[in-house]
């Protein structure tokens, strides 16, 4: 415990959960400068109050579980207190995202109700899916390769030196990894299908530039989803599983996990920012076309 690296690690482990739980509220508060005269301020206030209360409740739950875990020295409760970061997802997707949508109404592809004349393309977008069979094939081959490599290493390594915990983790890792990959593929498949059906309302003249922007945005969105969720994430988990079996060094895995997780996060942010910029471009062009309908 005298190792300063361990102390730093413990400190970050302790901060990890509250940082994650507070992130949605902090993000929403930092976006408030985007409010304008069209924003429904009453609704915004109510939603921010709900988010604040939900954040405080989650923090309280985490703190209570952590205190009980420390007092009783229960490893299960300690694990539960660490996993409390998962409460980030309901906070973010359930409350913070609708607030962001309220603030960025211009990014919504929905058609203004007052628009009387509506135009749509008759192209079936499900058939223009940019994710081809070879994308799925590549990911499956790499993940299967990593699984078999881990299995092979695990069978050829001297497992008598392993602690029961290491054997337990290896066994469940071998079962959990393929399940995770299959689950990710299923989520991705339906996610991409839903993303291809996102509304793409056209102007009354079916402006070619607008259609091209929609095409580019749709294609980038689907491909980013695939490369992040369908390739990088499962391959990253596979590499971690393989190295943890082969090298048996917790420190190395911690460094690899932190670096890989950060890189994945950065790649996700880049994809998100890129998608938002494309949406802004579409919104701007639509506004221009609506203000000069002859184009």
């Amino acid at each position, binding site marked *: 415990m005298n190792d300063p690296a361990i102390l730093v690690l413990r400190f970050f482990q302790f901060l990890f959960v509250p940082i994650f739980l507070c992130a949605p509220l902090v993000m929403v508060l930092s976006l408030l400068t985007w409010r304008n005269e069209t924003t429904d301020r009453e609704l915004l206030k109510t939603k921010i109050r709900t988010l604040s209360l939900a954040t405080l409740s989650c923090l309280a739950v985490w703190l209570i579980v952590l205190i009980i875990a420390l007092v009783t020295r229960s490893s299960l409760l300690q694990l539960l207190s660490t996993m409390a970061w998962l409460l980030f997802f309901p906070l973010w997707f359930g409350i913070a995202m609708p607030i962001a949508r309220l603030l960025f109404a211009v990014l919504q592809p*929905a*058609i203004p*109700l007052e*628009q*009387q*004349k*509506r*135009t*749509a*393309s*008759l*192209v*079936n*977008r*499900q*058939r223009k899916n940019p994710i081809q069979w070879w994308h799925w094939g590549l990911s499956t081959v790499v993940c299967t390769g990593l699984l078999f490599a881990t299995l092979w290493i695990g069978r050829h390594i001297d497992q008598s030196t392993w602690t029961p915990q290491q054997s337990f983790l290896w066994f469940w890792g071998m079962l959990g990894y393929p399940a995770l990959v299959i689950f990710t593929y299923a989520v991705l498949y339906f996610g991409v299908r839903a993303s*291809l*059906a*996102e*509304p*793409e*309302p*056209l102007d*009354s003249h*079916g402006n070619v530039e607008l259609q091209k922007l929609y095409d580019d945005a749709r294609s980038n969105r689907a491909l980013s989803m695939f490369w992040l969720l369908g390739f990088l994430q499962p391959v990253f988990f596979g590499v971690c599983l393989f190295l943890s079996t082969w090298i048996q060094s917790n420190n190395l895995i911690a460094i690899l996990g932190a670096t890989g997780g950060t890189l994945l996060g950065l790649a996700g942010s880049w994809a998100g920012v890129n998608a938002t910029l494309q949406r802004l471009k579409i919104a701007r062009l639509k506004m221009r076309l609506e203000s000069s309908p002859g184009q």
Partner: protein
Amino acid sequence: MITISLNSPIPLHDQLVQEIRRLLADGTLKVGDELPPVRQLANDLGINLNTVARAYRELTDCGLLATSRGRGTVVLSTVEKTTEKPAEERKRIESTLGSALADAKIAGLNRKEIELLVLRQLNKLWGVS
């Protein structure tokens, strides 16, 4: 591309049917072409799913579209399967044409202008003669 108008007195599903029939008649849609799923078209036009589904159903009943698992809705034929006898059908078309021409006359168009309009539509459907 299809366009509908929310302030038109014609019901939305009829407008959709008319637009798809127009695209079938002028050759934009050909036999075997796939139409977008009901949800996609409804989302793009900002209208109810049932409105689009009803329009597709009507066109399917006429033998113009077919819906199959896996392929979705496709153009089956560009010629309508009709239950009417040819003489009755001709009579119905003549009556529709008569109403359209009467509309044009009441709107203040003269004979020459109406002839030009009719010719333009004929050229759209059969090409310039």
